[in-house]
């Protein structure tokens, strides 16, 4: 997984992915996978390396977007982010 992500650089050459395999809550009632290129054009699929990074970056961007929506000032009012849990289950 790290190897695949390592083949692309941060911001993924503008490729973005939304991965709603189950009906999502944020945003509500949307399901499916959606991909966009650097011109904001929707495309059918991403190459494996871009897709791997798109999951990571897409999930981070979603969290950032909703924090911003809720008026959390990440620049001035957040000193640290504590992360717990599991990236992937080991079952």
């Amino acid at each position, binding site marked *: *997984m790290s190897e*695949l992500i390592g083949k692309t650089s941060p911001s993924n050459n503008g490729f973005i992915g939304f*991965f*709603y*395999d*189950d*009906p*999502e*809550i*944020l*945003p*509500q009632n949307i399901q499916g996978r959606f991909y966009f290129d650097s011109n904001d054009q929707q495309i059918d699929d991403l190459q494996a390396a871009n*897709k*791997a990074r798109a*999951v990571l970056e897409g*999930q981070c961007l*979603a*969290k950032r977007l*909703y*924090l911003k*929506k*809720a*008026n*959390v000032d*990440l620049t001035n*009012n*957040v*000193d*640290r*982010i*504590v*992360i*717990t*849990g*599991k*990236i*992937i*289950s080991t079952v």
Partner: protein
Amino acid sequence: MPLIYPGCGQQHGSVYWKNHSELENLKNADSKSSSLVDLLQSSFSRIDCPIWMDSSTTDECQLIEKTVGNAQNLFQITGSKAYERFTGSQIMKIAKKTPEVYQQTERIQLISNFLTSILLGQYAPIDLSDGSGMNLLDIRQHQWSKQCLNACGNDLEKKLSEKLVYPRTALGTIAKYFVEKYGFNNQCQIVSCTGDNPSSYYALASDPKTVVISLGTSDTVMAAIPASAMPKEAFDGHLLVNPLTANPESNLLMLLLCFKNGSLVRERMYS
């Protein structure tokens, strides 16, 4: 040294007491030979209790939103739009579908203050952070919203108790039952229990400048915002009284966001 016994319970679930005389018996030493189940067997007006997994109250949710105007207004008062699992709509359903049960109910508690009550041997008040998961609490005024209460049931304020406590309030010493039966120190102080989500946040965020992210099947994000910065537009997240808040002056809210597509998506991608 006085010991402190804190705890937490799943948010939203509710417990229906018929009377508190058996509960108060836990303060007597002679109760220790019996189990709690036996001691409290005629205390409740309802044996099965609704928990967060129930989603049968869509009609009740619409009624609550209608009472205050719309979803936007309900969000401004209670920090959330109406949700089926939230306690207000669950209480309304019980009051409407089984009025005799509702009538017989002396006290309605959340799972967290139910636990506190058992440990104390007397009714404990609802904690403001856990109380924020009911669609009934004015999260900026730190008191019940009368409008929401009236929409959900007659005399509901009496049944919930007017009294609310700030998170982490010490409420008294442990009931004698636990001292005699399990050897607790009789000076052990019982601190108000809270909901599972505010409890995880409090454990990991030592100050309001920490954002907590929990990765799992669903990913959750928790953060602090001042009540004065409460977003104007409703969204599908939740705002609660922040458990870092200990008095009326520190008016801090806790943001709770839940993203359903978490580790399962990552697993499919990376395994």
